[in-house]
C-alpha cells in the first residue's frame, strides 16, 4: 500500500501553534518525507523535548514520545539502542538542544547512533514568551527582550561537525520541499544525522522573520528581494566524505560554510560521511546477534514463564569449591 502524507495526519489533535509558525512547515515536511520513504507509522518513533517543537509528535501519526526539556536525545538513544529496527527521530527546539540539552548534543555525536535529530531554530523560547535562545545573535533584541541579547550565539552546524555527527544539514521551515528532501536524506543516512531547521517565530522573533529570510529588506535595482538563504547543492559544494583521507578537508570546508550568516546563509548538506562506524556497528562487534535480536526482542522466558537465563558461568567464577 502506498503511503500518502495524509496517512500521517492526526485529525483528532488541534495543532495549537501560532498562525504562520514554522512548526507547520516542519510537520508537513515530516509527513511528506515519511510517505515518500514508505515508512509505516508504527515503525517510526518521534521523540521530542519541551517547547512548541515538543508538540510536533502529537501532530504526526506514528509513535510519539514527548519528553522533558532538553532530554530528547537521551530518550531517543534509549529507544534506538533497545530496538535498532525502529526509525527514530529526535525533535527539539534550539533552547532544548543547544541550551539545557547541549551536553547531550555533544555526547550524541560521540556515539553516532543511526537516527535523525531536527532542531527547530527560531532564536527564541516561544512557549515561555520570547526569551533569547542559544541561537540568537549577540546584541539582537527581539521584541520580548527587556535588553539586547548579552550572549554570543552557538554555531549549531559547527558544533554538530566537531561533536561527531556524521550528517549535518540545514533547511528552512518555509521551503517544505527542501526540508522534506533533507529529512529524507537524514533518515536514509547511516549514522547520526542533524538538521538545523531555520524557522521564523511570527510572534516573538521580529528580527529574523520570514521577510528577513526572503530578503524583503534588501531589494536590487529592479525591486526584487535578495533572499538571504542559498542552497549549497546549487553551488557545486560537495559535502560527502568519499574516502577517509579527505575527512579533515571536508570538515574544514563545512566549518567554513558554518561561519556564514547574515546576508548569505547556506542551507543544504554541509557534511556527510558513512565511513564512521555507527553505535550499532560498535555494539554488534561486542554482541554478534545484536541487530537480529536487539534488547527489545530478546527472549526472557521458557514455556513456563521461567527466566531463561543460565547463571552457571557467573556462579562458577564466584564459587568457593
Amino acid at each position, binding site marked *: 500500500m502506498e503511503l500518502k502524507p495524509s496517512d500521517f495526519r492526526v485529525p483528532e489533535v488541534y495543532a495549537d501553534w501560532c498562525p504562520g509558525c514554522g512548526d507547520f512547515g516542519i510537520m508537513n515536511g515530516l509527513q511528506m518525507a515519511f510517505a515518500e520513504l514508505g515508512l509505516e507509522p508504527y515503525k517510526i518513533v518521534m521523540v521530542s523535548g519541551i517547547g512548541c517543537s515538543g508538540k510536533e509528535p502529537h501532530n504526526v501519526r506514528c509513535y510519539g514520545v514527548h519528553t522533558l526539556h532538553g532530554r530528547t536525545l537521551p530518550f531517543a538513544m*534509549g529507544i534506538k539502542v533497545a530496538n535498532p529496527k525502529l526509525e527514530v527521530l529526535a525533535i527539539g527546539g534550539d533552547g532544548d538542544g543547544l541550551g539545557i540539552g547541549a551536553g547531550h548534543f555533544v555526547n550524541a555525536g560521540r556515539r553516532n547512533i543511526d537516527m535523525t535529530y531536527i532542531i527547530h531554530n527560531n532564536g527564541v523560547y516561544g512557549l515561555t514568551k520570547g526569551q533569547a535562545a542559544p541561537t540568537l545573535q549577540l546584541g539582537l533584541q527581539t521584541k520580548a527582550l527587556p535588553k539586547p541579547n548579552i550572549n554570543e550565539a552557538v554555531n549549531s552546524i559547527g558544533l554538530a561537525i566537531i561533536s561527531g555527527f556524521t550528517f549535518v544539514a540545514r533547511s528552512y521551515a518555509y521551503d517544505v520541499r527542501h526540508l522534506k528532501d533533507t529529512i529524507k536524506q537524514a533518515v536514509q543516512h547511516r549514522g547520526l544525522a542533524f538538521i538545523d531547521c531555520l524557522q521564523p517565530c511570527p510572534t516573538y522573533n521580529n528580527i529574523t522573520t520570514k521577510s528577513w529570510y526572503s530578503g524583503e529588506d534588501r531589494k536590487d535595482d529592479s525591486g526584487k528581494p535578495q533572499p538571504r538563504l542559498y542552497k549549497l547543492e546549487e553551488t557545486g559544494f560537495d559535502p560527502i566524505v568519499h574516502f577517509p583521507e579527505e575527512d579533515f578537508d571536508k570538515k574544514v570546508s563545512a566549518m567554513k560554510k558554518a561561519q556564514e550568516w547574515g546576508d548569505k546563509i547556506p542551507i543544504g548538506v554541509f557534511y556527510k560521511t558513512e565511513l564512521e562506524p555507527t553505535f550499532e556497528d560498535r555494539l554488534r562487534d561486542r554482541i554478534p546477534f545484536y541487530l537480529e535480536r536487539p*534488547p527489545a526482542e530478546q*527472549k526472557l522466558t521458557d514455556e513456563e514463564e521461567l527466566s531463561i537465563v543460565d547463571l552457571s558461568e557467573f*556462579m562458577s567464577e564466584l564459587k568457593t569449591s
Partner: protein
Amino acid sequence: MAGGPQGSGVDTAANIFGKACGYGGLHVFGRREYHSNIKGLHSYFHLRVSQEELLANINDVNLLAAFDAETIVRHIEEVVPEGGVIIDTKDTNTKILSIPTLPPEYKQELALHLKEKNLGETLNDLLENAKQRNVHIFPVPYMNLLSQIGEKLGIPQLSKITRMINVLTIGVSFGLLKYDRQLAEKAVKAIFAEKGKIADMNVLALNQAYDYAQENFKDSCIHSLEKTNTNEERLFLTGNQAVAMGKVLGGCRVQTYYPITPAADESEYLEAHQIMRTRNGEDEAIVVIQTEDEIAAVNSASGAALTGARSATSTSGPGFSLMVEGLSWAGNNEVPLVITYYQRGAPATGLPTRHGQSDLRFAIHAGHGEFPRIVLASGDIQECFYDAAEVFNLAEKYQMPVIHLLDKAMANCSQTYPVFDYGKFKIERGELLREKDLEGKEYKRFLITKNGVSPRVVLGTKNGVHWHTGDEHNEIGHISEERLNRRLMVEKRMKKLELVAKEILIEDKLKVYGDTNSENLVVSWGSPKGAIIEAIEMLKQEGFSLGFLQVRLIHPFPTEEVKRTIAGKKRVINVENNFSGQLGGIIKEQTGIAPNYQILKYTGRPMTTTEVYEALKAVLTGKAHEREVLMFGA
C-alpha cells in the same frame, strides 16, 4: 584485617584471604573501607572468618596485617589480647604525628589520646603498649623478603615487585595461622588467573612469606585457622555482583549508568559479563551504556523500557538527585523503569566512599508531583540478588518506576553465601498486548481501568500507535488540560498503589526474626539487618528476648502489617544509619506508634554486631538514652 595506603593492594590481599578461607569450607564476611582517593590514603578490609554462618562484622580484630604505619595507628587498639599484629620492620620507628596522610582533625584527636594514655611519640610506643595487653607483634622485613624473591625471579630492581607486599602479608598471615598452604596458593592463582606470569610470581611470594612466618614466629601465634568439610556449595561475592546477577536473571537487557561510587562496580561487572548463556542454548545479551550524566542515564533507560526491553539504571545519591525529573516523567507515563539506588554518606558529595542510609525519605518523595512508585529495600546479599530480579516484575506488572534501595555497606561487603537457587524464578510481564491482540481495535495506552493498570503496548508494535507526554494526557497519550480527564488520570495512576499493596507478597513487605512474642522489638531496614540478627542471638544466649522487624517495602508502606507487628510492644527500638531515624519517623506517621528508642549511626561506617549488641543491651537494662549514637570503625 588488612590495611594500608590506597593503591597498595589491600583489596586484592583481602580477596585472596577470603577466597582461600572459602575454599577451606569456612564462612567469610568482609567489610571494605576506603577513602575517596586513588593512591595514598588509608584503606582497610576487615574479614571475619568462621565455621558458622556470618551476617556482619564485629569490633574485634584477631590479626592485623599492616602495610604501613598508619594502619597501626588507626587499628592497633581494635586488636584483642592474644591477637597479632604483622608490621613492616622499617615502620616501627615512625613518628606517629608525622605520618603525612593523617588529617589535622584526626591528629588533634590522636595527640589528646596519646597524652591521656601516657604514650610516646613513635609507633614502637604503641606496639609496646599493645604488648602489655598481650598483643603479639610480628615484625617482618618486607624489603629483605622482596630482595630474596627478586633474586629467585631474576628481577634486581625491587621497585618492580614492591606491589607484592600485599601478598607477602597474606603469606605471613596464613603462615602464622598455619592455614592450608595449597588453598592459599589456589586463591592467589584464582585472583591472578588472567595475568599469566604474575600469578606464579605471587605464588612464590606467598610461599616465601609463609615460610618466613613459620621459621621465625613458630608457635608464637596462638590463633590458628583450620579448613573444614562442607557439602554446601557457596559463592564468595559482593553486593554489587549479587545485584548484577539478579538483574540478569530478571531479564534486564539495557543498563545505563554514569560512573559513581558505590554503584559503578555493578555496571562494570555487567558489561564484562554482557553475553549470557540461556537454558535453550541461544545466547542473550545485556547492553550497558555509560552515558554523559545521570540525566541521560535515567531518561535513556526510560526510553529503552518503552520498547519492551527490561531496563535499569544504577546510581547513588548525587546521581539520583539528577534523575529526579526523569523519575517524575516515568511516573506520569507509567514506564516500567528500575532504578538501583546505592546510598552512601550524604548530603552533597558527603562521604563518597562511605556508608549511609539517609536517603530513605528522598527515595519515597523524590520528584515533583504525585505519582506512584515502589521502593523496595534489600537487607542482605541474598535479598540483593532476588530483589534485583523481582523489581522488574513489579515495574512491569504495575507500570511504574521501582527504586531498589541498597547501600554502600551491602554493595562493598564480600560474603560467602550458599549458591543461589534461581531455577524457579518466574518472569511476570503484566498486561502486555501484542500485534495480534490489537487487530481491528482502537488502542488506548492510558485507558481508564478499574484497577488503574492499562494494558501496555511497546513502541514498534503494529496497530498500537500511541503517544507519551510529560504533560497530563488523555487516554491515547495526547496533551489534555481538561479537569475531568485530569482527575481521572491522577486517580488512575495513584490507584495502582492500592493494587501493589494488595498483591505484593508479605515477604517482600517485611520479615520478622527472633522472638516476635517478646515485648521488645527492633525495627530496621537495609544493611543493619545482619548485625541486628547476630546481636539478638547473642542477647538470647544471655536470657534477653527480642524480636526484629525488617521493613522491606518502604513504599507503598505496609502500614497494617507493621502496625500489627509493633502494636503493644513495650520497647520499639529503631536502628538506622542516619541522623533523624527516617524509618522510625515513617512508622510513626503511618501507624501512630513511635519507636521509643533510636540507635543511630552516621559516621559513614556500617554498624557492627558488637556495637548493636551493646546498644540493645543498654536499652534492655535501662542504661540507654532514648537516642544512642554509634561510633565504631576507623
